[in-house]
């Protein structure tokens, strides 16, 4: 998996966290009924760590 793909995943998960949190704030339980945001957060964190660790050196 390329570094750019990982970045895309990270941005997507960042967007998902923001959108899901916003939806959950506006309409409680709308997201939590179907998606466990904790897992999204863990994936987001993991993808961020992997990006940092696999950052190509200049």
């Amino acid at each position, binding site marked *: 998996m390329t570094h750019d793909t990982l970045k895309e995943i990270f941005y*997507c998960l960042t967007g998902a966290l923001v*959108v899901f949190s916003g939806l959950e704030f506006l309409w409680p339980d709308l997201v939590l009924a179907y998606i466990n945001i904790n897992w999204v957060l863990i994936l987001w964190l993991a993808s961020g760590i992997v990006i940092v660790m696999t950052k190509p050196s200049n």
Partner: protein
Amino acid sequence: MILACVTLWLLYMGIVPGGHIVYSTNLDGDDFFIGKLTPTERVQYEEGAVAIIGDPAYFNLRTPRPFDRAILTFKYRHQRINGGFDPIIEAGVLADKVVWRYDLKPLENRTIDQLLLAWDIIREDDIVLLQRNRTFDSLAAFLESTTSPDRIAAYNYDPQKEYLLPDYEAQCVEERPCYDLPVSLRGSYQFYTYVKNEELDFRFTFLDLNENRDGDPVDIFLYYEDALIESRHLDDDGVTSDNREKSEERELALELPNLPEGVYKIEVRAGGDIITGKIATGQSRLSFINKVELAKAGGKYITLWTDSRKIQATTVYPESLQVIGAGDDELEIDATYKQFELALDRATTSDPQAIFLDRDGLILSGDGLFAFSPEAYLNPRVRRVNGDLDINGKGIDYVVARYAGPAIKGEWHEAQAVFDLKRAYREDGKYGFIISIPGLKTDDETDDAVLVGGIKVELLGVTLWEKIKDIIAR
């Protein structure tokens, strides 16, 4: 793109634009929408099965928005080890949180199921008329007939038989009111009364104990032939703290002249902080429905009359522990917060039986009516087909019920009940449901239970398009 699709799908599932959605669970894990059956003392979660071992059990249904109607499908089977069968299973939705009233609907009634095999059946829509010998060719003919209410039993249906007392005469003629209830009552209660050529007049005196933090308004509703015809409201005393300072006594009157002769039902809806210190009335007939909660006001040697086949008694006051006398039987109340039950020997008479209390501070309940004198007793109800009704012994020839009965699928039963959610109580996005199995007890030294195989709830409500049209029309 994926995120946009997921977000739209979440919104779709939340809005439910078609107004129809189904939630189901087989209870083998945590379901977000249909909560666990509770309480744990009466529900056993074992691998592969959930067993209700005591009555009642509850569950919550979480919905993203309000709905109008719910069709509950309950999958279950009976487990009888050293025990009898459970004659009635009902499901209900919480309709009123103040008095914890559930709108109960039948799932299974064994007595009616047996009559369906033996008696003549006329089924019209969802109503079934059962006749020992075929006398009527239609439900309408039966309802228009002058059949004595003593020969009729009903279940989940009110046959609306007119109940008149030909020998009744108003007792309070010169000065009204002329009767005072000899006890103080706590919380909510309902009673029947009778009016004939007289004014309906009740003067209630309330006081607020202020033991709980919530506001304690009082509402009084007057019903005639099951329709609400009048109401009264009394605001909270203004103290919404739990300072335990009793409020001043406040009076609320319900006075209506020129009412047609007949039975009227009065419902007093109030929280547990409200004490009805006095009911002054001109009506000579007064029968409390199913329950009376006697406040602790120092009253002694109280006698009640009831037509209940079983009575239950509970107290929260150590000073109110006592032995209740009923005919040749006695019921010892020797612990607080525990319900005690006594079966009354009522096989030979339909007259009310006296119950003798040493002191007040007791909650008395039963499947019948309670009066504070034999003269005040009044029973306009047709008998209800419950597990205790002796159809042959009581000379019942007709049973009318709104009842479908369960479908049998292998070893499982599947029963459905339809609920009007517009009249249901919804808090924090949840509706409260009850599964009632009268007679199923945890402490009766039997291992009988109702095993639950699954719960499905089909919800119906307004569509998104109907909602938009409604908003535009406003």
